[in-house]
């Protein structure tokens, strides 16, 4: 009664969750590209897309991808054999257990007329499948906590997944062990199947089971006489053998039975089997009900992602379908960390400590963003830096075992974030090269805005300090950052010949360069010579510098001008971050 009630509740939650999660694929929006497309259009585009694919040549691609990437998981194998083994053990073991054991009423029984969970091969297979999952979970724990795969982060969701699997599996094994030793269970079986009246016969069969199958009896104990055992054997063969293989075949349960043997009687008396049975089923029901909301939902989303990405193309597919796919991809991410392991920009994470530089952590964050949670400015600036600090090398997309098209996701989200008005100094670096190549995908106005914001932020108080009425401040004479490298002190060799400015191709670009660039290279050196670091770190010249090193190469005094520019830019970025931190109005990003 309670069993059925719980089963139906968890099934209902599961079904509701599944429908809800899939509906979010059509209702949630990520980034700039999805903004204009209503849910209804996305649903109809998806239906059209799916139908169009099924009745086209692409179906062959889908079949191939399904076999190689979904069933055999070749993408994981290519990356890491141990991980593939881990996942195959868990996935194959669990699927087989689900089909043969959990759904035995619906699958095993109709399929095999002689199905009985206590006879071979089913009894053996159940343990084998269970052991596969347990070994797989063991490898997962080993990888995350012992081997410590670089940049593999473990979140609460990863802990949950490991724990729920471990509880289901271990409770099952221990339940089996407890049942093997249980005298109560034994008595029920005798009543149901043997129907013995005679005292001697009862003792004989009991002795035989104690001797051979691990039952722990309060009445009889080894050693037994040959006669008793042979009589027990006859009875066993007559009444039990057809429906019950030797317990040893359930090898994990049997091993457990051996271990708990000394305390088996006490355990049986307190009804341990029943308690474990409840734990096992409750864990299964919790796992089922929570599945759509946990990372286990990837069981559904990842195959969809692999299949969708195998046939979708950036410029050919319906933008409505791409918008839907990008939300779906968030559910397909298993937080496996392959992207972060291979990320080209990962050293920046080591150096700057911003977790969001790692693609796997960006994905975790995107789930919150897509769900419409509000963000603090601090968080927004961290995620913005993380998303922008990307070399667009596409490695994450190439290696993702779930087939997620991360590069398109990053572009889309990056654009959305930098449009929110919080200045990002990284847009003034070669990290913007990719954005420049893709400028035709962004409106002119949107393209310029983040650049204007960032330029303003890194300029600091430049305009103010350049105002002739502002008294010159000498307090920033000893800027620590500028003393870090010996090369940056070279500005003191400058004797003002202006060669740097003369050879600069950027200066040569402008009719009135000082108006546009704020200060020219030789003037920046002059500022430094006078100790006016704030002034020197503010002009547009620094950010328009193409770093061609003409100035440095041609300087007769060996002033390392371009390298000093890099230092000044680093300083300006730090100052801008400080200012933003101090005056952060709590922007909401919903």
């Amino acid at each position, binding site marked *: 009664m309670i069993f059925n009630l719980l089963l139906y509740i968890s099934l209902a939650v599961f079904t509701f969750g599944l429908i809800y999660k899939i509906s979010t694929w059509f209702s949630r929006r990520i980034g700039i590209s999805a903004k204009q497309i209503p849910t209804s259009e996305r649903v109809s585009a998806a239906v059209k897309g799916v139908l169009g694919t099924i009745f086209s040549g692409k179906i062959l691609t889908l079949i191939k991808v399904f076999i190689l990437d979904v069933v055999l998981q070749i993408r994981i194998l290519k990356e890491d054999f141990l991980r593939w083994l881990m996942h195959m053990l868990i996935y194959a073991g669990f699927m087989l257990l689900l089909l043969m054991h959990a759904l035995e009423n619906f699958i095993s029984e109709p399929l095999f007329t002689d199905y009985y969970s206590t006879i071979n091969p089913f009894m053996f297979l159940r343990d084998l499948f269970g052991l596969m999952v347990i070994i797989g979970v063991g490898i997962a724990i080993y990888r995350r906590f012992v081997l410590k795969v670089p940049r593999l982060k473990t979140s609460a969701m990863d802990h949950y997944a490991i724990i729920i699997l471990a509880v289901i599996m271990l409770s099952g094994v221990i339940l089996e062990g407890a049942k093997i030793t249980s005298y109560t269970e034994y008595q029920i079986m005798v009543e149901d199947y043997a129907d013995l009246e005679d005292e001697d016969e009862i003792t004989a069969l009991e002795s035989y089971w104690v001797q051979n199958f691990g039952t722990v009896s309060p009445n009889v104990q080894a050693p037994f006489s040959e006669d008793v055992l042979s009589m027990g054997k006859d009875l066993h063969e007559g009444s039990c053998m057809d429906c019950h293989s030797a317990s040893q075949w359930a090898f994990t349960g049997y091993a457990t039975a051996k271990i708990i043997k000394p305390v088996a009687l006490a355990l049986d008396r307190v009804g341990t089997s029943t308690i474990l049975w409840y734990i096992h089923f409750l864990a299964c029901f919790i796992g089922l009900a929570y599945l759509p909301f946990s990372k286990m939902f990837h069981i559904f989303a990842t195959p969809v992602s692999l299949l969708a990405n195998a046939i979708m193309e950036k410029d050919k597919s319906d933008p409505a379908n791409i918008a839907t796919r990008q939300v779906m991809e968030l559910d397909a991410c298993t937080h496996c960390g392959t992207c972060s392991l291979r990320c080209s920009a990962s*050293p920046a994470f080591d*150096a700057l400590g911003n977790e969001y530089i790692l693609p796997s952590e960006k994905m975790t964050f995107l789930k919150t963003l897509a769900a419409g949670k509000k963000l603090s400015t601090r968080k927004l600036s961290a995620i913005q830096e993380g998303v922008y600090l990307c070399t667009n*090398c596409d490695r994450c997309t190439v290696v993702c075992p779930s087939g997620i098209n991360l590069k398109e996701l990053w572009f889309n989200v990056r654009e959305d974030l930098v449009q929110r008005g919080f200045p990002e100094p990284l847009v003034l*670096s070669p990290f913007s090269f990719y954005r420049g190549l893709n400028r035709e995908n962004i409106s002119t106005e949107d393209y310029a805005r983040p650049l204007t914001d960032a330029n303003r932020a890194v300029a600091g108080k430049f305009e103010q300090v350049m105002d002739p009425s502002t008294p010159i401040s000498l307090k920033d004479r000893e800027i620590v950052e500028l003393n870090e*490298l010996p090369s940056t002190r070279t500005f003191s060799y400058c004797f003002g010949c202006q060669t740097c400015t003369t050879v600069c191709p950027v200066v040569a670009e402008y009719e009135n360069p000082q108006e546009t660039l704020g200060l020219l290279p030789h003037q920046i050196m002059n500022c430094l010579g006078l100790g006016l670091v704030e002034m020197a770190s503010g002009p547009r010249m620094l950010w*328009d510098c193409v*770093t061609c*090193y003409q100035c440095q*190469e041609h300087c007769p005094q060996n002033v390392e001008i371009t390298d000093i520019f890099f230092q000044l830019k680093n300083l300006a970025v730090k100052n801008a971050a400080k200012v933003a931190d101090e005056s952060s109005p709590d922007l909401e990003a919903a």
Partner: protein
Amino acid sequence: MKYALFLGCNIPSRVEQYDFSARAVLKQAGVQLVDNRDFNCCGYPMRNVDQKAFLFSSAVNLALAEKAGLDILALCKCCFGTLKEAEHLLKEEGELQKEVHGLLAQRGLKYTGKIQIKHFLSVLYHDVGLETLKSKITMPYKDFKIATHYGCHALRPSKITQFDDPVAPSIFDNLVEVTGAKSVDWTRKLECCGAPVLGVNDDLSMNLTKKKISSGKKAGADYLCSACPYCHLQFDTVQNMMVSQNGNDPLASILYPQLLGLSMGIDARTLGIGMNQLDISGVTSFLESGEENAE
């Protein structure tokens, strides 16, 4: 001759033809390449923002190559220049260096400066040699004018990069001429391509590109030639964008290994001739054995 191949970030994602063609010509030239999946960003784009992030990124690559006991062959000039800069900085001792060595140790890596960093062109010129290259040329070009683009980050700062004479470089011209093509003199040969500020100040970036293109045209060049993915993207993808805006005639750019490969008799498909955005299929018509080799 065995090198750790350093591809960087642009080549695998946007300029794959450089990868394919460089591998093909290096194979013919007898240079063995070893791939290393653990290489990461050279640190170049981080230089504007954070010195430590740049230096550590570079140092990881240097340490990985040192661990493998191989010198680095970089295809990208910005990667090359940045790695050289890092090598230079890591010769000094200071707080920053200490931090970087500490971060390396956390990754189980160590860098002591035992390896060399070379650009693709340097390897061809110095290690393979013009004579060897010449012996591999089966279909030299005829009446073919090339404007060589040296690339700033390889040339300068010359004290650190030590690539060639910064004022009157000749390596690239010699490498072009070995194929039978003529390397023309052009006024903006040593200037910036514009790529470093693309996305930051596009007007400036594209104006610099425009000036280079018209200088190349004025010198009568049939094609620009580069050996750097940034320069190539600027002359190819960005010029293509500019062409569609202003309708000017393009001056297409060919990657050096594509140019060399064709004259070595390597087929156009292997060299990714069709993968450039601006059409360069006309190159084959300058090969001496002419039309029959054209695809």
